[in-house]
């Protein structure tokens, strides 16, 4: 089979990135054309049509799958290719799926959604069966695309970047053929499979699916945080993987995570992600409420109004106590796992260059404080439950003790929750946040694009930068400016033409019209002098009735139209367009001169110019 239209890593990665840009279908199409033009220096060789999951809501709502299909078709050459870009994790729901799902075999629904969407897109574009279907994905979406491919043979090829790996527990649940093979080989059922050694299952899965391995191609940055946390059981790699080495001072995030015991690493990651989702809008109270169940706003209401507050908010208070009772012990367990190893865990980060030792000390001491507060909260909850339980019913005498213990307990909870927030605020420092930003950034597609080791190309915000000598040009911006510049100048020229013609119409034409009108009147007067005899009687001194007018001769003189000013003005306008066009062209020439060895560059300018006309 021939090469795909998108046949370079840069093209694939840039197209994959589009899925995150929130584009309309027409914008999507334009962006695909632009990226192809920038990378190849020529027009994309076919018509493009776009179809996205937003047109089939059922899939998104029920399976959570989000993606876009691009169909490239050319009748003459017989070209027909369909690209399906699946969207990686982005929303809070996706993260939840990441943590709860992917670290223990994720659900089947997104893989089913992937296959279903590809089928829908095929029939939407009405593509022939011979059409190649190529899947693109980043992050979680790789697991979707690859799982769908193993289950349903969805794609001809899959290209992914920083992807979440396949998971054999998940495949065991969904792929009945695989299940049969596992059972034959290892004699285990649904539950016993978790007792089989992960190494054994990994090897078995890789062997079982090896025929599909040729279709799966990945690029992975070694510091990708998703890769770092993918050492947990269940995951396995299939297909070729192009691993990009880190060239900065940070190294081996995956190594750190592999050092941390499985369970602790998961807890730490789950905690960080859950908390950062809950406090996305900067609301710490919300973070504490989400993690511990303690609702500070509600307690404050109680503090202000005491008894009435107590009665009117009875349901909410009961709910809060129930939530806290459920959440705190679990959270405490998670935090304890981290704190009991915190020296070791954070030392790994220090050694890898992510944080320094004083940052480490701060993290350890504040986490210890948080742990203490949580222990106190757990104790308050249990003391208080025992008071409530011993007062068997709400009879008159017990009631006041319940009320008292309730209010006392709420206020104690409040002070502990506030103390947790204080610790969190201490940790909420720019230097620590920038470490998190750095780690997060290492998951991004743009980071990978810039790690590809391309001679003279780099990327920023979806733009392509070209380097020659010491000069770096934002080529995307240059092309945009050239295209927009030409467009604006064309528009301006049109406007000037319009102005010129309306001057013609409104001033010159009406001058001539007025002149004609006057001439017509003069002609009338000269032809019919008698008709003007009444003028003689108007003069009181002319009393002789025998007098008459026999001829009138009008001596006319028309002033010429003073239009020099207008002509001049229009001339000036035309000159300004020519001058601006010269600037735009000079700019283009200068860039072409910088890259004179590359014919492609001047071709690009020609093509955007053609497109704009």
């Amino acid at each position, binding site marked *: 089979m021939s090469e795909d239209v998108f046949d370079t890593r840069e093209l694939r990665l840039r197209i994959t990135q589009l899925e995150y840009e929130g584009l309309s279908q027409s914008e999507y199409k334009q962006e695909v054309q632009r990226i192809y033009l920038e990378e190849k220096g020529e027009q994309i060789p076919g018509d493009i049509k776009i179809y996205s999951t937003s047109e089939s809501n*059922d*899939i998104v*709502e*029920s*399976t*959570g799958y989000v993606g876009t299909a691009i169909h490239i078709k050319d009748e003459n050459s017989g070209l027909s290719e369909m690209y399906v870009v699946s969207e990686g994790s982005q929303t809070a729901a996706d993260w939840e799926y990441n943590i709860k*799902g992917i670290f*223990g*075999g*994720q*659900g*089947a*629904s997104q893989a*089913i959604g992937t*296959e*279903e969407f590809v*089928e829908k897109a095929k029939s939407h574009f009405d593509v022939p069966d011979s059409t190649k279907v190529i899947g693109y994905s980043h992050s979680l979406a790789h697991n979707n695309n690859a799982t769908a491919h193993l*289950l*349903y*043979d969805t794609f001809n090829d899959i290209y992914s970047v920083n992807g979440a790996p396949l998971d054999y*527990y998940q495949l065991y*649940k*969904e*792929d*009945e*053929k695989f*299940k*049969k093979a596992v*059972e*034959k080989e290892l*004699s285990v*059922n*649904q*539950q*016993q499979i*978790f007792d089989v050694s992960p190494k054994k299952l990994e090897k078995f899965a890789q062997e079982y699916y090896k025929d599909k391995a040729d279709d799966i191609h990945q690029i992975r940055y070694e510091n990708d945080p998703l890769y770092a946390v993918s050492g947990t059981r269940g995951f396995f790699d299939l297909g070729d993987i192009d691993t990009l080495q880190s060239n900065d001072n940070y190294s081996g995030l995956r190594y750190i995570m592999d050092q941390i015991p499985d369970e602790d690493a998961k807890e730490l990651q789950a905690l960080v992600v859950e908390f950062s989702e809950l406090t996305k809008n900067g609301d710490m109270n919300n973070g504490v409420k989400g993690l511990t169940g303690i609702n500070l706003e509600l307690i404050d209401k109680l503090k202000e109004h005491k008894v009435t507050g107590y009665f009117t908010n009875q349901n909410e208070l009961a709910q809060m106590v129930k939530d806290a009772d459920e959440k705190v012990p679990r959270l405490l367990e998670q935090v304890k796992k981290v704190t009991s190893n915190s020296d070791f865990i954070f030392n790994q980060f220090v050694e890898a260059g992510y944080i320094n030792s004083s940052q480490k000390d701060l993290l350890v001491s504040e986490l210890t404080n948080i742990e203490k507060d949580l222990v106190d909260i757990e104790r308050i909850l249990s003391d208080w439950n025992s008071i409530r339980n011993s007062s068997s019913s709400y009879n008159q005498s017990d009631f006041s003790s319940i009320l008292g213990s309730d209010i006392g307990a709420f206020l104690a909870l409040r002070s502990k929750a506030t103390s947790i927030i204080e610790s969190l605020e201490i940790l909420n420092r720019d230097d620590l946040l920038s470490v998190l930003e750095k780690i997060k950034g290492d998951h991004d597609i743009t980071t990978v694009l810039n790690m590809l080791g391309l001679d003279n190309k780099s990327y920023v915000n979806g733009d392509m930068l070209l380097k020659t000598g010491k000069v770096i040009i934002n080529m995307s911006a240059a092309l945009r400016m050239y295209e927009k510049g030409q467009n604006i100048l064309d528009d301006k020229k049109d406007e000037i033409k319009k102005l010129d013609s309306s001057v013609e119409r409104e001033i010159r034409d009406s001058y001539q019209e007025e002149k004609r009108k006057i001439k017509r009147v003069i002609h009338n007067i000269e032809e019919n002098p008698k008709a003007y005899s009444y003028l003689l009687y108007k003069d009181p001194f002319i009393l002789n009735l025998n007098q008459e007018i026999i001829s009138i001769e009008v001596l006319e003189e028309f002033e010429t139209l003073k239009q020099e000013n207008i002509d001049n003005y229009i001339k000036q306008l035309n000159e300004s367009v020519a001058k601006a066009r010269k600037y735009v062209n000079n700019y283009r020439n200068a860039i072409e001169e910088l890259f004179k060895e590359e014919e492609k560059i001047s071709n690009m300018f020609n093509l955007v110019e053609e497109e704009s006309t």
Partner: protein
Amino acid sequence: MEKKQPKETKQEALPDVEAFNDEYTRDFLLSGEEVMEGFYRFQSKTGKYEMAFPADGIIVEQAYRIKDSKSEEVSIGLHDERGFGMDIFFFSYYTPEDREGILRRFKSRLGYDGEFEEIEKLDKTIYFVPMEDDELKTYGAYIENKQNSGGLEVVYNIKCDNEDEQICEDYKEEDKAKALKWMDSFTFINDKGVESDE
């Protein structure tokens, strides 16, 4: 509230079987009364369907997934003599119009080439697939709701590792009947009121 009953107030009265002894599984079961021999009433956490749950089955917690009331995945490990396991995938948006695609995908997942056996019931249609050639027999069914949207892809795996092939062969009819009976136990809950209970 009704759901909590089996584990909280009638603890002693609950049958001493694996399904009820496992805390995670117990939470899905509505009552200790058998609905058919060796099966108890299971209600989906989506509130959209019920089924008969095997006494010696345990829901595999690691494999359980739910997305609101839209979809649910339940894996059951079986501990009886020849039992193996069951898998249930529920999707609320499946409709008869999508049936062709649903059945095609289901076949692909099962690794099955043949036709489905269509069994009409009052409230549902069962598209049944018996795959009995392997040591691990697979009975699959797509169960379509007749009254509303919603469909279930269910699989019942039964293992026969008896060395005497004739014995396994003899079990065939019995196993198929057992699988069909289980599949027929699924009922969709079309009443919207169920959701608001939560």
